[in-house]
């Protein structure tokens, strides 16, 4: 019997690519399409800082060049944003008004930098770094500017700060201990981070909050609640990540902070799965919901979602725990891969 399955995967990160591979391995004839709004093929996000420094070239970022997709007969649609899903009609709507029908769908749209409500009034003045095109666009500006303020509310900020210091920049960071992502920074941990960063020549401000950021000429004037008033060439915001699920709201696919899936990674629709940074799962051991984060979890989940979509009944477990060392902290983690 000929199979008419069209597997569509939204997102071209680790979760999406591992899902596509798994589907291809067990179904050599199926139509497989990956749709992604980025223009780059599958690449290492954690190497973006090296790329900005000039220490890594585009080839070094690339996990998988275009030819591999061709060899595997995986249709790659880059630069195409999915705007809406109709899970009843099994159609996805692309931003340029095209529709694509699927028989089975895996959503692996990852996460984007979070804008805390407290910074919403001046979010226009804040830079974020999470994609290749962000990096590409910002390289000239980063090279030119001298003084940087980094709103340090997540683990990615440390890598970025280190990059700036390696590039000889003057860096001030405002540590968001209480809203830190993806773990909370207890007082002693915050102290260690502060020391480690200060030793590197970074000015660390803690227990204070940004009140306003205003553009004045080429620079940005910052005022904090405790009265600090200073000007910086650029301001970067690293305040954690939130799942990319806006386009799903109202479709009937249930979401909370991420896309709600069961322990088989299935959503409330039988033919729709979600994996990677965008998925939210109930974990009976933690007695809590859990948002998958990190490179390795995305790979594990992408693989498992595809297996279950093909009929397996595997239950998801987080990646095994390892010790992660960042800025003087040793963290036991299953969610972040140290590269």
């Amino acid at each position, binding site marked *: 019997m000929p199979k008419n399955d069209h597997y569509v995967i939204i997102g071209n990160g680790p979760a999406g690519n591992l899902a596509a591979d798994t589907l291809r391995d067990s179904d050599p004839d199926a139509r497989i399409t990956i749709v992604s709004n980025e223009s780059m093929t599958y690449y290492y996000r954690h190497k973006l800082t090296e790329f900005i420094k000039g220490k890594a070239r585009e080839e070094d970022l690339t996990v998988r060049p275009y030819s591999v997709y061709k060899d595997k007969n995986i249709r790659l649609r880059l630069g195409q944003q999915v705007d*809406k899903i109709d899970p009843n009609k099994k159609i996805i709507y692309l931003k340029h008004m095209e529709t694509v029908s699927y028989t089975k769908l895996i959503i692996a749209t990852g996460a984007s930098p979070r804008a805390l*409500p*407290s910074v*919403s*009034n001046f979010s226009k003045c804040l830079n974020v770094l999470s994609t290749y095109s962000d990096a590409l666009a910002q390289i000239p500006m980063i090279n030119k500017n001298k003084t940087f303020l980094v709103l340090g509310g997540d683990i990615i900020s440390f890598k970025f700060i280190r990059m700036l210091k390696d590039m000889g920049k003057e860096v001030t960071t405002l540590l968001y201990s209480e809203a830190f992502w993806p773990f909370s920074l207890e007082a002693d941990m915050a102290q260690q981070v502060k020391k480690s960063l200060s030793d590197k020549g970074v000015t660390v401000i803690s227990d204070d909050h940004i*009140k306003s950021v205003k553009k004045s000429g080429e620079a940005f004037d910052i005022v904090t*609640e405790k009265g600090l008033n200073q000007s910086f060439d650029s301001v970067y915001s690293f305040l954690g990540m939130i799942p990319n699920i806006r386009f799903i*709201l*109202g479709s*009937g696919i*249930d*979401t*909370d*902070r991420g896309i*709600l899936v069961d322990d088989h990674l299935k959503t*409330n629709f039988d033919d729709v799965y979600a994996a990677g940074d965008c998925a939210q799962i*109930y974990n*009976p051991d933690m*007695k*809590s*919901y859990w948002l998958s984060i990190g490179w390795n979890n995305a790979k594990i989940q992408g693989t498992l979602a595809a297996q279950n979509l093909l009929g397996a009944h595997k239950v998801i477990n987080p990646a095994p725990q390892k010790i992660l060392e960042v800025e003087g902290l040793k963290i036991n983690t299953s969610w972040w891969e140290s590269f």
Partner: protein
Amino acid sequence: MKNTDRYKKNLIVSTGKNKTYASESVKSIIYSTDPRDFGQVKKSIPCQDACPAHTNIPGYIRCIHEKRFGRAYELNRLANILPGVLGRICSRPCELYCRHGEPDLGKPVSICSLKRSAADFKSPMHRILEGLYSPSGKKVAVIGAGPAGLGAAHELSVLGHKAVIYEAFEKPGGMLMYGIPDFRLPRNVLMLEIENILRLGVELKTGVKVGTDVSLDSLLSDYDAVVIATGCTMPNRLGAPGEDLEHVYSGVRFMEQVNNGETPYVGKNVMVIGDGFTAMDCARSAVRLGAAEVKVNIRKTEEYMPIDDQEKHEVKFEKIRFYSLVDTKRIIGEKGKVTGIEFLRTKLEYSPNPPYRNAVPIENSEFILPADSVIVAIGQQPFPGEISGKIEQNGARILTRESGFSTSITGLFATGDCASGASNVITAIANGRKCAVDVDEFLIGRKRKIHVVRLESVDNTDRDRAYDFIKRTPMNTLDFDQRVSQRSNEVEKGYNEEQAAQESKRCYLCSLKYEIDTTACIYCSACIDVAPRDCIKMIQDVSMNPDGSFGHYTETRNWNNVSAIAIDNERCIRCGQCYEVCPMDCISVTKTERIELNIEE
């Protein structure tokens, strides 16, 4: 006769003849009572249809565009009597249905905030308009000075009856005064608009509780009619252990204390349970009382909360967290005081007909979070209490006759939340006014007001296509410091005049009806070529709605089958392009408005 033939015939027949159903260009003003015109207005102006008081929304937004703020305010007052109040706290059912919010058209028009602009920018002490009837000599007692009671008393006064309001609290306003906090609704705005009602001769007796201070029976014998508008004042209980511990509050009682100027103890760590208006007000008030961490615990997810996005944004901006997918198992305490809550995680389960999600607790998922205080805001019910007596009830609600507001006792009427169950301010006002019309008919023995559709042919589209691409104007709000430094500081600052003008341009003015005169049409399809969406249809047949207005169009792409070319006013965004391009001038624009008329003029 085929429906399309009837459609064409209608077009021809109504031209120039004095027929009230106007399906084509109307040269003069016509007041129509034809159900087909009501049907057409209902479909064409979705916001007005969704407003429980049927406020003339495109009408007042157009006035704002023309900077006629006083007129915009009066157009509101005609329907909803408290525009300055509603412009701040209305639950905005209209915006959900605004055509501008349809897929691919952007966000709904800020209908509510524009209403506030009308109130803000009308000149101070502007002239208010009332269509007063001469005195009837009849007296009506109204129990409760909430929005429903105020709406009823206002309309009764307009109709010439003496209205006397009995209110248990010291001040009028009901939940507007004792529920909604002043940082969302400044009391001077509320009191000014209440004064506008009282000055019609309404007598207000506050601090009088009917059932305790005066009996319902005595009111029934002293007055020609009595209206009960006592609202929903009894909080729903959680039914979980620990609810009676110290520092566990019900939402309505907590807000009552806050609005009385008291400072109930909240501690640093506050847990609010519930997902509606009341829960948000409690959480935001707790922040202003000095709480450091406030969580709003909800059983489902944010998507299913019954509050709008703007409100969600404000709540989060005040550093309040939504804690979703949790169900309260019990409230825990030590020495009689609350110390925490034991929750269960929940998961969503689909339930069909109508599609809905239930929150189902997950087994063995118990966990405890600490709390210094707990506010349970999971809705409220009517508490007819002492006044109920012999009145038939529907659960806790007062039973009213299906088609109106009369109760099981002759001369006794009920309206607002005590009859409908907990609703919102605009529904309560609309029902209060409708109830007064029922009372009037009971007292006078005949109907004195009717609704008609006013049709006026216009020769201007009043719009520019560029307006369609203007983005919704966000509300100006206070920053966090200013919000907490003084708890009565109003959070929303309203639009400035320029912003109001800009936002007013976004309204499509759906009250303008576009039509093609098929007798003059040469089927050049120039209009279809410029149309921004599938608004102009080549039709083969058209169905009829039960009210006689045109329903679903059967379209065709085959020219041989085209029996008419028509504008679908449910799809039309009134961009005016077709009107401008038509070489035969066969596209007409008619302003259609649902208005209230006095029958006896």
